[in-house]
């Protein structure tokens, strides 16, 4: 693996971040977030790098990274489908959405398609219950889903 290091832009952001906190380790969450943005996931090497920056042992970075489900400890596909599985979405058909994605990509929950393009996970309420069922694709919400709408969405992807 190439040298793990923030690119220039992220390095600047990181330095700004540090100024916001009384202690370096307090910047853990946003720093991990930056690292995940740059590398797509948090490999052991990346967590070790972050530990070095914040002057904490790698094990303490690992604790935080595994505590929050939004940090990826495995590589995720180019398209990451995060289907909400909490009550409102469940009542409005989230299970069907998940099943459709499973079938379409031939993967289970928490898995990535063989070509490395699609990842499927289930997440808890994304605060969009009024437009259930919904999912988050990478950083964007897709709401009021139906089978047809989901098909359309998938077709639109490169």
């Amino acid at each position, binding site marked *: 693996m190439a040298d793990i290091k923030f690119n220039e832009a992220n390095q600047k952001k990181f330095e700004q971040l540090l100024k916001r906190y009384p202690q370096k380790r307090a910047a853990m969450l946003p720093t991990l977030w930056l690292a995940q943005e740059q590398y797509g996931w948090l490999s052991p090497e990346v967590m070790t790098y972050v530990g070095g920056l914040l002057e904490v*042992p790698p094990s303490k970075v690992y604790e935080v990274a595994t*505590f929050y489900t939004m940090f990826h400890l495995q590589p995720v596909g180019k398209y990451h489908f995060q289907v909400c599985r909490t009550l409102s979405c469940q009542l409005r058909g989230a299970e069907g959405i998940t099943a459709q994605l499973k079938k379409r990509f031939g993967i289970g929950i928490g898995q990535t398609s063989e070509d490395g393009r699609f990842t499927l996970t289930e997440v808890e309420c994304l605060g969009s219950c009024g437009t259930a069922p919904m999912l988050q694709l990478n950083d964007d919400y897709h709401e009021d889903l139906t089978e047809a709408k989901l098909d359309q969405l998938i077709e639109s992807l490169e």
Partner: protein
Amino acid sequence: MPKLTIDGKEIEVADGTTVFEAARQADISIPHFCYHPKLSIAGNCRMCLVDIEKMPKPAISCNTVANEGMVVNTKTEKVKELQKSVLEFILINHPIDCPVCDQAGECKLQEFYMDYTMTDSEFHEEKVKKPKKVDLGPNVMLDDERCILCSRCIRFCDEITHTSELCFSERGDRSTLTTFPGKQLDNKYSLNTVDICPVGALTSKPFRFQKRVWFLKHVPSVCSGCATGCNIYMDYDDGKVWRYRTRDNESVNQCWTCDAGRLSYPLHNEKRVTRPMVRKNGVLEYSTISDALGEIARALSSLGGDEAVLVGSAQESNENNMALKKFGQTCQIKDLQYSAKPKDDADADNFLIKADKNPNRAGVQHLGYQEFHGGIGVKVVLALEGFSETHLSQLREEGPVAFILLATHLGPETELADVVLPAATFGEQEGSFTNFQNRVQKFEAALIPQGMVLPAWKWLEKIAQELKQPLQLSAEALLQEGFGLKFADLGTEGKILESKN
């Protein structure tokens, strides 16, 4: 200096003392899992909840500072109810596999359940399953299901060894004790985590599934692994030592020991010399006691005092070295040297592990022994365990030397000896070592010597008898004569020697 009342007892404590420690000072014990006197306060187990009058909610005593006028209750119905609930909560996902758990019999969870709950669980759902055999490191195995997430082991690695190998991953009922991916719990003190784990989650690989702890008997003893002389309990049964456990001594090892020392116990059980041996026509053979003693007498009686050298040992006790010195006085042998294991500077730190791998160098030096330097014209060597091949070849460069060894173990040295007498280890006799602080520390006998094994001082008595010299010894008298101390003076903490000048 706040004054407070705990269970009706009024006590005064130093500023900043917690309610938990105040109770301890008043001899009131409060059940606890995560609190440990040598570690930072985590306050995560809630087992130490107490009721403090005028406080709106029950408080965890381990993290509540004692204040003037506080009225604390630790044994009321209300507190009992709290303790019950906390235990029920902790037990939700606990596998309760006590019948196959090594900790059973010395498990805090088991004990507190018996003391505070004794009711059936109301949890009828399925328990979370977790891996039962996680290889954490060279000496430690984890049963994840049994972990109650007290974080003692994590804090030990953060605060005592500063190695920070351990952490919790995930959260809620998925929380798991683990290491960073690809890393191991691999430090020189890792087995202390097994000691402080209140349950059977962390187990010692060498002790795992070896013995039910309620069969073990123990005596206070001292580790022989290095000059620190960590205080231990020697746990024994069936004529065998099964493990060492750390014993508290604030001035020596606090409540810790290193892994290497702790795992050195097989020395009492393995590769032992159990019968006398005599070299006949070049071959070392088993012999009777009287043949062996006769052989030794023959070798010694034909000599002038300066043709023999007595080699004590930094591996042997104060008493056995003193016995050898007395033997020299009786038989007019003046050359007293001592053997010692070589220093290992690579295996030393600023905590407990010393480069000097001998438990009793200070003791032999106190008795006036010189470190081994050989000699010219030596015809006979009488040595305690610890005398090495290199020492012998150094002496034999000058000519043939009869070699008499009071050996605990079979090894290259016994191969070279002319007469070998089977000597007891420090687990088989009462005695003492003097550590690097000049602290004389007592050990007691756990095992009865097997076969023809005897403590070295008893063999020396017999050799003297064979030589028709009067020599009457006892461990107590040897300690008294050599060090001006009685076993009773040593207590549980040992006694520092007054400097000689």
